[in-house]
């Protein structure tokens, strides 16, 4: 795969996200993060958690934002939905982005709202021309409203649609080409979907437009069984990153070099030290991917 230079994610202001490990911000960890001698590279928040008017959530995020680069990850825009985007929700996202000036803003290739009902999950989309056109319209609308590029995340899925006419990687590449959005590559999602649909994760990554990736997500998954009794993986974010996902991560960073990498842990949330261990693992792999020349230069620059 060509190692195309990535566009700088910071062309619209806000502190740039360094090519280091970051963590999904949990309220319970705020004090530990602020007082830790290990400095996490960046923190990422779910935009929807900061759409209230004020109070403790904004106070905590304000304190974090003063000390760390911040990334904002939306979970409720329903970009893949059939209906029009909820303009009120787009405006709420804009308010969060304007207030905190994050280095990166991302959303999902999924849907969650239909007919004024909100389904609290990231639901799958068919990969056909009609959906492609709609998703592109929605992303353009969001980028226009925010006045900046967003990243789109590849989904974890459990089912396929008969009506799909193209591969997920083709679908995502088309979106990036048509809208100019960046991509967020969730390697756990790749592994989960590959297992669930019986393809090789490496083959998926071969086809994925890696040159457009500006951020990586890593998380844990849980095994279950499908209708035939075969293993199916749930994107549960409730445990450490699987060794096989770390392996894929090494492959990807080996190809595209150091890149902001988020550890997600959203259920059965552990002590900060456990999450930090995962982040430090990602930092080590990132350093290795920078190659000896780069680290020498960094050392020289630090003087």
């Amino acid at each position, binding site marked *: 795969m060509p190692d195309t230079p990535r566009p700088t994610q910071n062309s619209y202001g806000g502190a740039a996200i360094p090519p280091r490990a970051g963590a999904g911000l949990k309220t319970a960890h705020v004090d530990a993060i602020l007082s830790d001698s290990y400095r996490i590279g960046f923190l990422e928040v779910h935009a929807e958690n900061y759409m209230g008017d*004020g*109070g403790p959530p904004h106070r905590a995020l304000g304190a974090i934002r003063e000390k760390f680069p911040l990334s904002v990850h939306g979970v409720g825009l329903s970009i893949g939905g059939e209906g029009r985007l909820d303009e009120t929700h787009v405006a709420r996202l804009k308010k969060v982005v304007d207030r905190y000036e994050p280095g990166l803003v991302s959303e999902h290739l999924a849907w969650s709202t239909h007919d004024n*009902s909100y389904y609290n*999950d990231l639901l799958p989309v068919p990969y056909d021309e009609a959906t492609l056109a709609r998703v592109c319209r929605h992303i353009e609308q969001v980028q226009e409203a925010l006045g900046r590029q967003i990243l789109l995340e590849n989904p974890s899925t459990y089912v396929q649609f008969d009506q799909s006419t193209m591969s997920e990687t083709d679908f995502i590449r088309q979106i990036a080409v048509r809208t100019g959005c960046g991509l967020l590559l969730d390697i756990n999602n790749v592994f989960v979907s590959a297992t669930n*649909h019986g393809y090789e994760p490496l083959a998926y990554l071969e086809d994925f437009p890696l040159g457009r990736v500006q951020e990586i997500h890593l998380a844990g998954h849980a095994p279950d069984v*499908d209708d035939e009794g075969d293993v199916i993986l749930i994107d549960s974010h409730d445990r450490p990153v699987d060794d096989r996902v770390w392996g894929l991560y090494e492959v990807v960073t080996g190809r595209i070099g150091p890149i902001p990498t988020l550890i997600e842990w959203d259920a059965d949330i552990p002590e900060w030290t456990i999450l930090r261990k995962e982040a430090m693992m990602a930092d080590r792999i990132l350093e290795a991917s920078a190659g000896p020349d780069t680290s020498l230069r960094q050392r020289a620059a630090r003087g």
Partner: protein
Amino acid sequence: MQTTVSNREFTTALSDPDSPAPEGIRGPNRKKSANRFDIYRNNVVVGLIDALGEIFPAVARLVGEQFFQDMARLYIRANPPNSPLLFRYGRSMPDFLAKFEPVAHLAYLPDVARMELAWLDAFHAADTSCFSAADLGTVPQSELDDLRLTQHPATRVIRSRWAAASIVSATRSGASLADINPTAPEDGLVTRPGHDVQLRRLLPGAATFLQSLIDGARLADAAEAAGRDNAEFDLPLAIRVMLEAGAFSLRGEEV
């Protein structure tokens, strides 16, 4: 021709655990989709149960975790959320509890839920400074009767025929409920004076006093209304509580 699946078909099946997965959805190599589709159903419901558990921790503790989860499942089917902001979910929980036969013996439960919603509203309310004792000190004696105040965005007065404030406070702090008489009527005041939400029990008449001020009454008229409401109303004490709790933000317009 391939079967297409609309969002409507998908969500109709998603919301009904007894319906099959939509036609046109499958696993790889024609594998079946029932268990696979159930993962989405489960994700939606479990996520919402968790959200309700975070909004109503006292209700959950009072009825027991397992019962709460089963009840939440029924609530979710009848009252799906209509916003991706889950801190706005559960608004109809007090009404649901009032009509839910299996908890009819816990008559205070709807008011407990109402208080927990007020607590959540206070948590997310806008930031603004509180009207303090020092602020009150700047008001000339001659203008005190005519003083009008503006409600702090976090402030909520909740009147209950039950001991809802004590029950919520004890339940949230993990304290024993043994000493609480649930049938003693209580008024509660939810505020956010500093960084954290506070819930206090109000003394007799104070709820009328504070609610009158919130509704724009002059201080003298609010005090008079409170005295009419309850002969035990203690104005100096009510003012002290009001200032400590940070119930108001700015001096309103004096008319």
